[in-house]
């Protein structure tokens, strides 16, 4: 198979890579670009651990081909903190202990960031529905929901 040359923007930086035509964005991020924050849970769009934002839309990077990102903008978990300053969601996940094993956490953070960008003041139900595409097998979700609620308050005040 001939490689596909792709120019895209990831976390604000111009990036060029070669990938196979059937290679997912998740595999490109992890195996070619060293961005291992997005995780492969299921690989079939069910668990959300590979969530990234593609042109302002939350997507599973396992359901996007690397080749499709030509000329587009990708935001990953690696772009969430500013240097040593954590994003309020990251800070609140820590404070609320909203993680245990941590595999789902990057996906939850990206999904929660997208949720709050579109709905800065969500109800608990809206948070639960909004994050229904992300599976966590450790926490039982309550701590995650509390962390997002708390982050929403901080971000509204900012």
């Amino acid at each position: 198979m001939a490689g596909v040359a792709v120019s895209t923007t990831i976390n604000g930086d111009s990036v060029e890579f070669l990938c196979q035509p059937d290679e997912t964005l998740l595999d490109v991020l992890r195996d070619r670009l060293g961005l291992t924050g997005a995780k492969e849970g299921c690989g079939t769009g069910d668990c959300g651990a590979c969530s990234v934002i593609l042109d302002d839309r939350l997507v599973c990077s396992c359901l996007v081909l690397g080749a499709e990102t030509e000329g587009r903008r990708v935001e990953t978990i690696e772009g969430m903190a500013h240097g040593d300053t954590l994003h309020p969601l990251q800070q609140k996940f820590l404070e609320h202990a909203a993680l245990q094993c941590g595999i789902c956490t990057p996906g939850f953070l990206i999904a929660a960031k997208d949720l709050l960008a579109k709905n800065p003041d969500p109800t608990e139900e809206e948070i639960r529905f909004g994050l229904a595409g992300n599976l966590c097998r450790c926490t039982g979700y309550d701590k995650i929901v509390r962390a997002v609620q708390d982050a929403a308050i901080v971000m509204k005040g900012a």
Partner: protein
Amino acid sequence: MRYIRPLSMEDAVGQLAGSSGTAAILAGGSDLLVRMKGGFIEPDLIVDIKAIDGLSEITETGDGFSIGAAVPCAVLGESAALKKAWPGVVEAAKLIGSKQVQGRCTITGNLCNASPAADSVPALVAAGARASIVGPAGRRTIPVQGVPTGPGKTSLAKGEIIEAILLDKRAPRSGDAYLRFIPRTEMDIAVVSAGVNLTLDEHGVVKSARVALGAVAATVLLVEEAAQVLIGSRLDEATLERLAKVCAGACRPIDDKRGTVEFRRKVAGVLAKRAATTAYARAGGK
């Protein structure tokens, strides 16, 4: 395998028509990539249609709406005009998958994936939606129910691409609704589903109706007899009971782990009643 991103419909059709081996059309990829990952399909050619002019847009014309084949379902939910005119179609499209999947999946893909349980299809069939198809022989427009022919199979010929789903302009006093049964509260595959589309006269009497059932046969069923039950009524209790009976009788479901034949028949009737009641209220009926 080759991946191409044509800029025109003509190029896309030409590439598909001229391909040897397996070719796949890529819009949202939420079915295609899963099937590739599972080894169910190994395309020699992937034609990404998202860069084709107009395919990522919803256009409102004097005749109604044209929903481009690459428009993600999330965008349908953000279109106030579409939601106002066709709330049942939009609520069906919004039931497909998670937020992540919503950002990618399309109603055209849902139609072409040809699952009997596809959520948007009963709503589209009830709405009388049409598919605008472009192929080597030119353009043709057919009712959406003519696209799926059985589980995973469509009537599209080699080289043909659906470019848009067309919905008519709304007549006054019209409403539609879609409901499905799933054992969870969200993110699941329909066990049974029903879409109803009604137009009332100025006295609140149903003057036209379409009723479609999903997941109870190899393809979505358009139940003409159910529509006839509703026409001329104000959806009184006796009418709704007859609707349920006709819908239960029209089902040709299978027994599987998600539901038995008996259960599916009963729930088809219940959902048709509830969807009809919602559609009636949305049309302004009391």
